[in-house]
């Protein structure tokens, strides 16, 4: 059993489980699924010195606990359900990325960039630090991230979320086809 669930989960298993997070949070506590709110709560808890951050961040304790659970879940999957094989991405993606100079496909992320030594390089700084910054800035500006807009928002048939998701894709395509080729 453990061996079976240690294999990569196909989309038709993983997708529905992720989708169920939405009704489960509504049912157990009337909460709306959205991970990026935690970034705001963390800022409000530490540096609540601008208007947007002056609120009682403790109201978001449930969500911060959910995020902590996500870290723990990642750790459990990494330790108890570990799969030693490289990520089985398509050959086409592998060739494209190899052409950009990525050679190590063994981990969850390309370790040449996403490591402490990678952080000392220009691509590392841009992809980790600037990329992180844009994720934080963009998700709060858009009022949600993949969970808040692409999953909860679309599931509730919210037109603003559809526009946000189209924006996510526009940005992702620009980074993939125009920025990464220059950077790597």
């Amino acid at each position, binding site marked *: 059993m453990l061996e079976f669930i240690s294999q990569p989960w196909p989309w038709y298993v993983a*997708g529905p489980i992720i989708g169920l997070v939405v009704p489960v949070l509504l049912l157990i506590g009337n909460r709306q699924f959205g991970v*990026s709110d935690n970034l705001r709560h963390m800022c409000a808890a530490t540096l609540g010195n601008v208007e947007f951050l002056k609120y009682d961040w403790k109201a978001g304790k449930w969500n911060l606990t959910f995020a*902590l659970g996500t870290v723990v879940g990642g750790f459990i999957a990494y330790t108890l359900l570990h799969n030693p094989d490289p990520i089985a991405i398509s050959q086409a993606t592998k060739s494209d990325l190899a052409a950009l100079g990525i050679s190590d496909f063994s981990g969850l992320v390309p370790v040449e960039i996403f490591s402490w030594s990678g952080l000392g390089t220009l691509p590392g700084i841009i992809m980790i630090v600037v990329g992180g910054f844009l*994720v934080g800035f*963009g998700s709060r500006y858009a009022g949600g991230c993949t969970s808040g807009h692409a999953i909860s928002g679309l599931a509730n*048939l919210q037109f603003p979320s559809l526009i946000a998701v189209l*924006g996510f894709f526009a940005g992702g395509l620009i980074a993939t086809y125009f920025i990464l080729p220059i950077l790597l």
Partner: protein
Amino acid sequence: MQTIDYPPTTDATAAQEAQAPPKDGLLKYLIVGIFFGIVLTKSEVISWFRIQEMFRFQAFHMYGVIGAAVAVAALSVYLIKKRQTKSFNGDAIKIQPKDWGKGYRYWIGGTIFGLGWALTGACPGPIFALLGNGVLVMAVALLGALAGTWTYAALRPKLPH
């Protein structure tokens, strides 16, 4: 004076949280979060490689995961609304609609988010899951995301929404 149309300081989620019952056990959220972290990891959606595969349209996997998640969530939300299901503590379930404003925030903010998503290969959920997977350098991405959130908070009155 130019009128700037931006939503009030407390947006939909924060407002909802303020109305929610204050005393609410946290263990259940920890458990749901653990399941979420496991499924994000085992479906490999936290992998930078998978995100690249998605943005290059070279496999169905990510579209399948997100599409199936939306379908199941949409059906659940439809049923909850139709049956007027109450949450376990007996309250009517409320889902705040997204305020359109002038719409700028969605396409501009969304595009900025997308740039970051493809560069880091991770959105906020996966950043947390990757930390658990021992990719500790993502703590720097998290700090970057916090800096981005703070910068948005500071610039908010000047940005079009």
